[in-house]
């Protein structure tokens, strides 16, 4: 039942070809644990790999790729960073967009939707503040399965409390059968979900004031990371704020973004960061 180097390489190559994400052969435990149900169904790893290579039954390769993706996420993941984003960074954008009263937010690599909904909940809780504003929240992921789950807004008991305070949980979720919790339609309808790879062009309107791309870039090789940063920069307004995962940075990866001097841990377009730095220093 053990996964050979050859099989691991085939599966890793399949994942990279379909999503751009890399899976080191040394992390074979991840492959084995993610594919356990498929291995059981096919009787052995080698048979599974052979079936995947011929994509029989049809759709098997897609299903295996989906299973290999790491969809770990939770509400307000890295809360101090979210406090910065939804505190001073959002206030700055509110001032900058006071004329148009329009904010566009892209959650790129959104997995099952918790971070996109974290933002939507905050806007829903601040209705008087955002009266008259148009706030577009678009969330994308390469996995069809997680996008379908995200659209449903239905979470297990374990998922619903990860990162979410009990007050917000009771306010925005209804308890359902089977220890499931259903997000209120009011919040669910605020987010538009799309199946889309980070290597593709940004979703419309392709002009975002806030971009979240969290804990995804670490799965790309350096070249693909550069491509993704270029895509994100092209989709960002000049004053846009970029939020990466806690272990990710733009430093040494791209010249398109720079550390936000007012909100360390967040990033601005490089051209926008310099004036902010000058203003902060004066």
């Amino acid at each position, binding site marked *: 039942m053990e996964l050979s180097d050859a099989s691991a390489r085939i599966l890793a190559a399949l994942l990279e070809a379909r999503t751009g994400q890399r899976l080191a052969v040394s992390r074979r435990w991840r492959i084995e644990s993610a594919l356990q149900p498929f291995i059981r169904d096919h009787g052995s790893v080698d048979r599974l790999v052979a079936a995947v290579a011929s994509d029989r039954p049809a759709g098997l390769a897609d299903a295996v790729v989906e299973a290999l993706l790491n969809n770990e996420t939770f509400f307000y993941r890295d809360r101090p960073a979210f406090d910065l984003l939804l505190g001073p960074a959002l206030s700055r954008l509110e001032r900058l967009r006071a004329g148009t009263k329009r904010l566009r937010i892209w959650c790129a690599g959104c997995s099952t939707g918790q971070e996109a909904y974290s933002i939507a909940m905050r806007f829903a809780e601040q209705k008087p503040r955002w009266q008259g504003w148009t706030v577009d929240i678009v969330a994308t992921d390469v996995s069809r399965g997680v996008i379908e789950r995200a659209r449903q807004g239905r979470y297990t008991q374990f998922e619903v409390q*990860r990162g979410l305070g009990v007050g917000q949980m009771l306010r925005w979720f209804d308890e359902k059968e089977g220890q499931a919790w259903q997000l209120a339609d009011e919040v669910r309808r605020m987010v538009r979900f799309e199946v889309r790879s980070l290597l593709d062009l940004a979703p419309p309107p392709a002009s975002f004031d806030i971009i979240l791309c969290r804990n995804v870039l670490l799965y790309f090789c350096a070249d693909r990371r550069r491509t993704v940063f270029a895509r994100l920069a092209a989709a960002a307004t000049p004053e846009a704020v970029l939020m990466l995962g806690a272990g990710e940075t733009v430093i040494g990866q791209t010249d398109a973004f720079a550390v936000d001097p007012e909100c360390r841990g967040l990033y601005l377009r490089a051209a926008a960061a310099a004036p902010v730095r000058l203003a902060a220093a004066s």
Partner: protein
Amino acid sequence: MRSCLVVDDSKVIRKVARHILETLQFAVDEAEDGREALSRCEAKMPDVVLLDWNMPVMGGMEFLRTLRAREFPSQPKVVFCTTENDAAHIRAAIDAGADEYVMKPFDRETLESKLQIVGVA
């Protein structure tokens, strides 16, 4: 260093909670039931109490109501941590003075975020 009193009659849960809390830099004390927990609070009030619902001698709700009714110099944050996982129990706990609620099973991320929400982590 922040302090947490873990109140649970299950030795396993106390051990798991202690492990997570210590990685979050908490000084951890333990009690097996509500009455023992009150004695601990009288001796030294923790910053936060992680509280089970069903326990022998004195359960979590009785402990919480007694704690909130007493005029201690300071009151700890109280985070329920229980298998009573329906909305009615959660609302009852909040009404009785709990600050947060963790449904078992839980993991490090869940507990850490709850402690951040109540302002002790």
